[in-house]
Structure formats: structure tokens, C-alpha cells
């Protein structure tokens, strides 16, 4: 197995990011120089990642989800919005019926039953994966972009800029995130895009803080001083030196952030502030049937399970990444 020191690439190699660590790692250069030239930092990190059990499980769960999202039209037995149960003449919210498990073959088969409008619950769940994944990634992408920019500015320039940005971040963090998200949606209006934006805004401080603290350690390194002495422009230093070396904690934070975003978007949909019907989205599917939990629990159980699957996948992957990318936490 490779040791953590192998994560550090040859610092004389201009394409790869430079080491973020202190002088303690310098003596490992000789060892890393023996690595094949073709394998960069990310490839090594990915190999490392595959050695972590939690990351493997997380990746598997995520892969399943992505496949389901892509091939939903092929797997789903029915359209997610068609009221098939009503056409077939079976009551709405009928219990799951699987012929293989002894359900009477005169009954139409609905693996997870039908919902309050007679739509096939299983098909809706499959299509829901699309919304959930897209919304989670989308919210985090926006938050990471904004947070990175703010964190870079804050960490690199310091002083008054830093103070102003970080105090604004403190104010954002002073509100419980769901509350602030609800407030933002109240201003923007209901809808999936607005829910994503709201979640983005409330999570920006996390990324800004992570990037800022990474920048603070990176900018003190000799190679940045060397760039400065050579007269490299500030923009280039940030882009070529600071940013790549600050990425590791950001990637971990972003992965865990997708988990949180998925959970909060589902919560917003549950409160009726997310997607509009009839779009199949897990949070709103659950919300629509929540008063029927005592009579048709399957309509609450499965959407929740799907949300959990999605959140768990990213949580496990994020944990594994943190272990793989941060040698200090190796245990």
C-alpha cells in the first residue's frame, strides 16, 4: 500500500500542484520521485480513496443512483406523472403488489404501490433521483463558486477585505440554515431553482471559510514568495499556486456539502417550498402523503429511504475522501 507521503508530487514538476505541507514533508521528495511520471496527484488520491471502505460503499451507492437517474425512462415501468392506477381501476394509495412475492396475478403489479393520484410510486422514485442529484450538485456548485471566490479574496488579501467578508459570513452563519433558506425563498418565490439558490447562499460561508484557511497556509510557502520575487502577477499566483493547493479541503467539504444540500432541499420541498407538482421529487412526494402515514405508510417510507440513500452516499464518500486526502487524519 502507498504511504501518505506519496500524495506529495515532485515540486519541480510544474504541471502538478505543489505540496501544501510544511518542511516536514520535504524529505519525502526523493521517495515520490520514483513514482511513474504519468500519475498525478488526483490519480494517486483516487487510488488511495479506493482503499477506504466508506468511500467504496459511498461510490457504489452513488453509482447506483446515477445509473438510476440516467436510465430512469428504461427502468421505470410507468410514466412518473401518469395516473395509471386510476386507469386500471385499482384504488389510490394501493399497497405494493409484486407478483413474484405472491401478490395475486389478477392485480396489476406496482412494486411500491400507487400514490394518492394513482401514480406508480416506484416509477416516481426512479425519476426523483434526477431531481435530487441535479439539485444537490447544482446548489453546491453555485455555493462552491461563490465561496471559493470570497475565500480567495479574503485569505489572499487579508486586512480590511478579509474583515468585511468574514463578518458577513459570520452573520449568515448566525441563522439556522433552514430558517435562512426559507426566508430567502419567501423573497425569491417558490420553486426548485430558488430552493437551490437559497441552499447555496446559506452554505457559502462554509466554503469561504475552508478556502480562506487553506489560502492562509498556502500563501506563506516559499514557492509563493518565489513567484512574487519573480514578478508573477497576483492573478496568476492565485490561479496557479494558491487555488490548486487549497483544493483538497474544498473537495472534501463540497462532497459532504452535497449531502447536506440534498437533505435541505428535500426539507424545503417537504415544507412545500421546493418543486411544484406534478414533478416527482422525494421530499414533496413524502409531504403529499404525510397525513396518510397511518394508512399508507409505504408512501412515506420509500421516498424517505431514497433521500437517505442519496445523503448517505455523499456522506460516506466525503468521509472517505477526507481520510484519503488528509494524511494527518490517517487511521
Amino acid at each position, binding site marked *: 500500500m502507498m504511504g501518505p507521503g506519496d500524495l506529495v508530487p515532485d515540486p519541480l514538476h510544474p504541471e502538478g500542484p505543489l505540496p501544501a505541507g510544511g518542511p516536514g514533508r520535504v524529505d519525502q521528495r526523493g521517495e515520490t520521485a520514483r513514482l511513474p511520471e504519468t500519475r498525478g496527484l488526483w490519480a494517486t488520491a483516487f487510488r488511495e480513496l479506493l482503499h477506504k471502505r466508506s468511500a467504496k460503499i459511498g461510490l457504489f451507492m452513488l453509482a447506483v443512483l446515477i445509473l438510476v437517474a440516467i436510465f430512469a425512462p428504461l427502468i421505470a415501468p410507468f410514466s412518473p406523472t401518469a395516473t395509471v392506477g386510476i386507469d386500471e381501476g385499482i384504488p389510490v394509495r394501493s399497497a405494493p403488489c409484486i407478483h413474484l412475492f405472491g401478490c395475486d396475478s389478477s392485480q396489476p403489479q406496482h412494486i411500491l404501490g400507487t400514490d394518492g393520484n394513482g401514480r406508480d410510486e416506484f416509477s416516481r422514485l426512479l425519476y426523483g433521483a434526477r431531481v435530487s442529484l441535479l439539485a444537490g450538485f447544482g446548489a453546491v456548485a453555485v455555493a462552491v463558486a461563490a465561496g471559493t471566490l470570497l475565500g480567495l479574496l479574503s485569505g489572499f488579501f487579508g486586512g480590511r477585505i478579509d474583515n468585511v467578508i468574514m*463578518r458577513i459570513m*459570520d452573520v449568515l452563519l*448566525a441563522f*439556522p440554515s433552514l430558517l435562512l433558506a426559507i426566508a430567502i425563498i419567501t*423573497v425569491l418565490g417558490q420553486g426548485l431553482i430558488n430552493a437551490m439558490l437559497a441552499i447555496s447562499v446559506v452554505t457559502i460561508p462554509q466554503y469561504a471559510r475552508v478556502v480562506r484557511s487553506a489560502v492562509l497556509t498556502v500563501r506563506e510557502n516559499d514557492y509563493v514568495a518565489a513567484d512574487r520575487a519573480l514578478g508573477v502577477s497576483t492573478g496568476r499566483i492565485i490561479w496557479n499556486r494558491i487555488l490548486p493547493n487549497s483544493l483538497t479541503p474544498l473537495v472534501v467539504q463540497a462532497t459532504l456539502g452535497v449531502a447536506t444540500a440534498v437533505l435541505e432541499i*428535500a426539507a424545503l420541498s*417537504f415544507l412545500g417550498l421546493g418543486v411544484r407538482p406534478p414533478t416527482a421529487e422525494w421530499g414533496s412526494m413524502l*409531504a403529499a402523503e404525510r397525513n396518510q402515514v397511518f394508512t399508507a*405508510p409505504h408512501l412515506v417510507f420509500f421516498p424517505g429511504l431514497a433521500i437517505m440513500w442519496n445523503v448517505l452516499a455523499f456522506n460516506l464518500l466525503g468521509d472517505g475522501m477526507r481520510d484519503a486526502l488528509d494524511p494527518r487524519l490517517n487511521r
Partner: protein
Amino acid sequence: MARFVARRLLYSIPVLLGILFVTFLLARVIPGDPCRAVLGERATDEICDAFMERKGLNRPMYVQFGVYIKDVFTGDLGESFRYGRPVTTMLMERLPITIELSMAALTVAVLIGVPAGIISGYKHNSAADVATMVGANIGVSMPVFWLGLMLQYLFAVLLRDTFLSLPPSGSLDAGLIPAPFYEVWHLPEWGVFEFVSNMNVFNAVLSGNWTAFRSAAGHLILPAIALGTIPMAVIARMTRSSLLDVLSLDYVRTARAKGLPEKRVVVRHALRNALLPVVTVIGLSLGTLLGGAILTETIFGLSGVGKSLFDAIQSRDYAVVQGFTLIVAVGFVLVNLVVDLLYTYLNPKVRVT
């Protein structure tokens, strides 16, 4: 120490001002005309102009902000147009319910999370450790609202006729209206007493009302578990990793080497240091709890701050939104402040610097 406290207090001021500004802005940018929201769609322009004039809504923004700050500091949070009652009065009724729920949830989280984390960290890589970590991972990934609904189904339907049966919603049995404890003991009707008496469990204990206690506590268990699960998982993970860190330190080895009993090494030497970061995590969980309270209270039909806020946002009850948001955010900042100071007090290393 005094300097540190003073500096930490000073740092909170810009954040508090920022919160005031955000809540002020919040009520001003919510779409919709405040006049017609209050007086109805058919209010004429003249009536509306008079209304705006009377409420000071046509004055420049900075003047309005000044007035708002003055109002807040004199304890005037405005009046709910939906209920026609002062927001502070509503807070007096609903804040206790949320506080009680959060405390119950935090108790569940700490009582289960800390021991689980200790066992997990001490018996590293054992079956108990793996089970705890799997449980913790699932715990942080569960939607609060789903867990709440599933608990309702489990305890109110599946276990209905067993001794484990628990009520699915509400805060007291129907028809049960326990007298506030200050009436029972013939005490004056002070605000503090009234506030505490709105916490059903506390009130029942203070007035020695056993029936009310059983009813109130029974109604609180499920929401507390639903709300406490995420903090529980976070606390368990933090306790575990912190204990693992400490157990590998030299002074623990020294303690073992000099022949101290293992229990003493773990409890007196390791745990005391390992629990420091856990204190911080417990404090920070309060923010999660307040956010989760919106969902938990909605599901379990508890009329606390979370549910009231959500209702107020839906019905555009500006003053309530503004006032409740302000109190929640300020409360969050104060809790963080206390946690920070507590941490400094507990950790001599930070205290000196």
C-alpha cells in the same frame, strides 16, 4: 481571561448588528404590499398612503432602520397582524415550547451519543465501534421529517396496544389543561414564571402534577428522538475521534506505564481532555436543533417557534417573521458565545494565550 472575554463580547457586536440588519431587510424585501397584506386587497390608495404614513413606512430606509433598532432595544417587536397581538407576547408562549423540545432533544443526543462515542473510541475497530459508526452515518443522513413520521407510525400504530405506545402529536392529552405552577403555589404572576409554566414538563414537575407530567413527557419523547438523532450522531463521532486522539498521546502512555488502573487512565486522564471538543460540538448542535425544530414542530403539531415562524412566513405575517427570526439568531449567537467562553474556561491552553 477578562481581556479574552471582553474581546469575544466585542466581536459579537458586529454580528448582532448584522442580524438586526438582515431581519430588518427581510421584512422589507418580502414581495407584496404591506398595506394590502394588512388591510386587505380592497384598501384604496388614500387609505394605504395614510397607513404607510402612520407606520412610518414611507420614510427613508435608514430612518426606518434607526426606528427599528430603537424599538428592538425597548423590547417592542411589533404586532402580529394575523393575531393582533404583540410579537413579544407570542414569543413568551412559544419560545418555551421550543426550548423545552431542544433541551429534551439535546439530552437524548448527549445521553446516547457520548457513551456510544466513548465505547467506540476505546474499543477501536471492535464490533461495537463499527456498529456505532454505521449507526452514526445513517443518523446524520436521515431526513428529520421522515424519521419523525416513521416514529409516529411505529409508536402510534404498530405498537399501539403495547406499553410502548406513544401519542403521535400534540403536547398534552386532549382535554388536559394543567394549572400553571405559580397558581398552584399562589405565587405572583411574573413574566419569568409564566415563561417557565409554558414548558409543559417543567410546569408539571414544579406543580407536582403527576398526570400532567406523564402526558407531557410522553408527548415529548418522539419529537425529542426525531430532533436529537442528528446531533446524537455528530456527538458520537466527535467523542470517538477526540478520544482516539487523546488515547494516543504520551501522557496517557505515561499514566499507563506508572501502573494506574485502566479505568482511571481512561476516565480521569483521557476523557477529561477528550470531552473538550465535544462541548463545542454540543453547543453548535443547538443551531441544527433550531433549524430542525421547524420540521419537527410541524410534524408533531407543537406550536413552538419553528412552526409559528413557518406559519408566519406562509401568511406573510411580517412582524412575527422579523421578531422570531431575530430572537432565534440572537439566541444562536449567545449560545455560541457561551460555548466559546466555556471552552476557554475548561481548556487552560486557550486561556493562557
